[in-house]
């Protein structure tokens, strides 16, 4: 919200230093986002053009005689075309400083010019919002008076953020109230008395019908004898400083009251409302409204409208309709000041993407009494322009008083950690307009009508802390009692990350929301992820329409962005559609893009590396042995894909990227992936220590010839079972295919290690077990021993 400091100063005495005021506001909970500083302007006074004649030597110049209330008039030549005798205008005298120029006496085509007539731009106001040429001032202003001081033209403008709970602070007066309380000075609030003296003539008296509970108060007042003309200078200039374009006196007064005290108003042309009968109701389905900015809206029952007996005349609290808007011919008004349920206004304003100064105030739910105040303020200003006021009509009944809140002073010590005396609490709360009764430790507090956000004792405690200053509360560290909540899950995720770091992987982050470009690439690689992907109802763009169904895709996109060796990991959540909800899977994913290596087609070093990384990670996290079996996964090459499990529980996969996907991502390097379901990984079980055998271990190496589809795991399993209790290790350590074993065969080298805890094994005993193993390997797997 733009706050002209000059306007603020009319209600409260403030320090000169704008930065000090900005700091004060920030520390009150109204952060100042920026300060717009104005250039220095001096020496500009109110003048009146008493005579005007053509310049003797220049067609484009006119020579004005100006009365500035002094004995001697000034002669000023001007090129402006909007000047005429009798006008009140700003005059920069000799020596005046304007934003881009200092005024000196000068001859203009032979005529001595003693100053300059000023446009709005020369007074640091937006040129496009004022007269094209010389700015016009009110005729009531004293001649020779200082224009800069009168309108605070050099005072800065503050841009202040108002939190959504402060319906009362969306105005110059609202902020002035806060500053007055904070500085402990008096507030010069405007009167909210309605000066209406004429009883409404019955046939023209407004009739208000509230057909919706979402309008809680509606004040209407008939005003006659109005005239559409420019508003007084003070109003025009203040509006412009506050960022609101001046239009004409009627529109400007309505805006002025809204900016000044926070109540949006609407002025209807009274002649356009049959029987002065206004109805607040839900719109009918298909009902249409043309707004004052000529937007055609098609409404339905979700929209709250103000209608006359025939048609919608405005979108309640948001925007008026063009049919009954004030126009040049308007002479009589119906003023509307109303209170609505904020949520209703907010929803409608969001649905029609119509966010206005009015809606931004109404959506916070304004205090009902403000409706009366706003109408009264407008009536005062219209009366000052000569309008006749008729008595206001109110619908909505009695305004409920604000609640009485009990507050014990020791509660402040309990929640804030500082002692506060009942008197000091009462002092601050009274400064904010509360009625406070003190009874020993106990305070009974009634907030003022404009503070509907104060409903319970903590609200008052915050008000106390705010005015006392948060910086007055000393820092201390709590002594936290032991709690039963565990960090196990976090510690485990952390451990996984640090293990992967040690294994050489760099942690990356990728987007959880993905779109067409990634899904399209996956689809071109034969993977349709749309069907399983969760869709966001309100995405920012097509590129963020879906929740990622895997982390793998993000890692592939990362690798595809650069042609380099890489080892990366991400720990995050993957999402899948579930019948009623969303299936969320915390996942550890890692990938390696390697250099291509020359190797036989049945060997895959890159795979072996990533597999051993995955096994190392899992066994460190669980303390258990990991089982590997061939498997399938949608991202992986069907022949180079392993399932990892512990105790029969499947934990994830590791393998080489599917060639179709490699092609669609344009990944030329070999890429290996692993994906583990974090929550499937069993809890860590601490191992127990077994002292090593005192007797030597013995091993035998065998070269087995087998069919190529027989897996190493099968060889290890069969050999281990055959050797029996003394077997302490079976490991396949080499594979060979080629001429020496013949086509359609492969050779595996396996080392069988044996050891007894109680004796040295004799060669005879070892050979007997090895022979048993060879026999079983032959019977079960068709293996023969190559000698």
């Amino acid at each position, binding site marked *: 919200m733009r706050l002209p400091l000059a306007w603020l100063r009319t209600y409260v005495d403030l320090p000169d230093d704008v930065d000090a005021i900005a700091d004060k506001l920030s520390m009150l909970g109204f*952060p100042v986002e920026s300060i717009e500083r104005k250039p220095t302007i001096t020496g500009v006074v109110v003048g009146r053009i008493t005579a005007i004649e053509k310049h003797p030597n220049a067609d484009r110049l006119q020579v004005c005689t100006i009365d500035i209330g002094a004995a001697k008039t000034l002669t000023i030549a001007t090129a402006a075309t909007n000047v005429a005798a009798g006008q009140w205008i700003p005059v920069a005298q000799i020596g005046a400083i304007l934003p881009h120029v200092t005024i000196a006496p000068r001859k203009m085509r032979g005529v001595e010019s003693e100053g300059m007539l000023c446009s709005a731009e020369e007074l640091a106001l937006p040129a496009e919002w004022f007269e094209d040429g010389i700015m016009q001032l009110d005729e009531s202003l004293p001649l020779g008076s200082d224009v800069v001081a009168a309108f605070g033209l050099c005072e800065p403008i503050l841009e202040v953020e108002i*939190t959504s709970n402060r319906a009362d602070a969306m105005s110059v007066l609202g902020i002035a109230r806060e500053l007055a309380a904070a500085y402990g000075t008096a507030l010069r609030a405007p009167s909210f008395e309605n000066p209406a003296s004429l009883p409404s003539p019955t046939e023209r008296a407004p009739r208000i019908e509230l057909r919706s509970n979402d309008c809680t108060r509606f004040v209407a007042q008939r005003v006659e004898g109005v005239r559409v003309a420019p508003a007084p200078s003070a109003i025009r200039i203040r509006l412009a400083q506050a960022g609101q374009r001046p239009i004409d006196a009627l529109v400007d007064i309505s805006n002025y009251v809204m900016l000044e005290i926070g109540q949006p108003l609407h002025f209807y042309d009274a002649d356009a409302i049959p029987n002065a009968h206004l109805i607040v109701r839900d719109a009918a389905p298909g009902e249409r409204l043309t707004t004052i900015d000529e937007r055609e809206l098609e409404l339905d029952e979700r929209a709250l409208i103000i209608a006359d007996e025939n048609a919608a005349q405005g979108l309640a609290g948001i925007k008026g309709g063009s049919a009954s808007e004030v126009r040049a011919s308007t002479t009589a008004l119906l003023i509307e000041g109303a209170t609505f349920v904020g949520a209703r206004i907010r929803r409608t304003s969001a649905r029609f993407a119509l966010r206005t100064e009015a809606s931004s105030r109404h959506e916070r739910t304004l205090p009902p009494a403000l409706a009366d105040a706003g109408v009264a303020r407008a009536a005062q200003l219209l009366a000052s322009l000569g309008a006749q006021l008729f008595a206001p009509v109110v619908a909505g009944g009695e305004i409920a008083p604000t609640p009485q809140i009990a507050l014990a002073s020791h509660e402040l010590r309990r*929640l804030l950690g500082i002692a506060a005396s009942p008197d000091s609490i009462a002092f601050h709360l009274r400064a904010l307009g509360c009625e406070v009764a003190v009874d020993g430790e106990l305070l009974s507090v009634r907030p003022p009508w404009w503070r509907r956000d104060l409903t319970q004792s903590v609200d008052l405690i915050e008000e106390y802390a705010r005015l006392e200053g*948060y910086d007055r509360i000393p820092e201390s560290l*709590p002594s936290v009692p*032991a709690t039963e*909540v565990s*960090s196990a899950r976090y510690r485990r995720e952390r451990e996984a990350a640090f293990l992967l*770091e040690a294994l050489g992987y760099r942690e990356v982050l990728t987007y959880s929301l993905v779109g067409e470009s990634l899904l399209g690439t996956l689809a071109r690689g034969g993977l349709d992820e749309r069907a399983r992907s969760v869709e966001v109802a309100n995405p920012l763009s097509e590129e963020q329409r879906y929740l990622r169904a895997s982390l793998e895709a993000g890692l592939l996109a990362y690798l595809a962005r650069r042609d380099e060796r890489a080892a990366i990991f991400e720990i995050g959540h993957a999402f899948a559609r579930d019948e009623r909800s969303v299936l969320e899977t915390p996942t550890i994913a890692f990938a390696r893009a390697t250099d291509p290596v020359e190797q036989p087609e049945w060997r895959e070093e890159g795979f072996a590396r990533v597999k051993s990384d995955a096994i190392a990670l899992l066994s460190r996290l669980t303390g258990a042995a990991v089982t590997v079996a061939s498997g399938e996964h949608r991202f992986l090459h069907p022949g180079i894909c392993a399932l990892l499990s512990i105790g029969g529980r499947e934990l994830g996969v590791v393998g080489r990227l599917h060639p179709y996907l490699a092609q669609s991502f344009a990944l030329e390097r070999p890429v290996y992936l692993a994906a583990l379901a974090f929550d499937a990984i069993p809890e860590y079980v601490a191992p127990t220590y077994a002292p090593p055998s005192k007797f030597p271990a013995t091993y035998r190496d065998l070269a087995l010839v087998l069919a190529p589809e027989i897996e190493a795991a099968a060889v290890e399993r069969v050999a281990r079972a055959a050797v029996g209790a003394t077997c302490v290790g079976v490991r396949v350590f080499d594979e060979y295919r080629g001429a020496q074993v013949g086509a359609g065969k492969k050779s595996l080298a396996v080392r069988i290690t044996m050891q007894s805890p109680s004796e040295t094994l004799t060669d005879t005993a070892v050979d007997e077990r090895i022979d048993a193993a060879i026999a079983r390997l032959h019977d079960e797997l068709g293996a023969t021993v190559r000698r």
Partner: protein
Amino acid sequence: MSALQPQLDDLAQRLRAGADAANDIAALEELRVRFLGRNGEVTLVRRGIGALPPAERPDAGKLINDAVARMEALLDDAKARLARGALDEELQRRIDVTFPAPEASLGSIHPVRRIVDEIADAFGRLGFATVLGDEVEPSYYAFDALNIPADHPAREGFDSFFITPELLLRPHTSPMQIRTMQQHRPPVAILAPGRCYRRDAVDARHLFQFHQVEGLLVAEGIHFGHLKGALAHLSRSLFGPDQRVRFRPSFFPFTEPSAEVDTTCPKCKGNGESCSMCGGSGWIEIGGAGMVHPNVLREVGYDPAVVSGWAFGVGVERIALARYEIDDIRRLIESETEFLRQLQ
């Protein structure tokens, strides 16, 4: 004095001369055989004992044994000298220690995780547990239970991504407050880090996904001063011992009183003066905080008259930008190798 002595002394002298001249172990062995061997010179002397005058004979054996011991010691010394000579030669070797070595194959931890972990550690020292939760949450946990009912204007401020009207991507990790308090009786002291989502258009300062760390402490006797102390502790843990914090009043539906939390700008150390990081204010904003609203405590079945507590939320990316002087928040998610390498 026995006539034997000069003879033995002569032997020792010659052995010494031989040992001094020896260049290798083999030469020493040769000396040992020549002097102390089975047919060596000492043996010859021993055989001559019979030829001595009878009076000298009783001591002769001892004299010879002493001489043998001396000569063996001489040989041992010489052997040790030779052995060390070989080591001394090794000591003359020099390599170029600056010659580049192959890089260790260590990976790296993302700066976001590092900061989360440091915060977890800082609060771990205060007795806080760290908990993790889902990213898709029912609106009950994201809003309703946090004193943000359906029509509350603050909901709009969270500008959330919805899956269904009742299910959304969490705009903060505050749902973990509710979930933890519903599962445990007070006292509760938790930290909840995690990925959050808001509908912010992506630019140098904004991402639609970000990480938040939420802190919650509820117990008897917990007050606002503790909140200030805890966040000062956090800031000092992250940015250094001279950090200060500033609390400004603000509004969050789930806390009352509420505050925005600033800390000394780590770049200009609070001097301001045309600092590019803090815009000259000397402060940077790190998050929001406040005393847990009594409505939230009641919602989870805690009695606000008995226990009190506070909660805070800090933005991890924002802290990362300040700490590492990162020019563009997108770098955190692009995770380019060069970026990760510099911050590893």
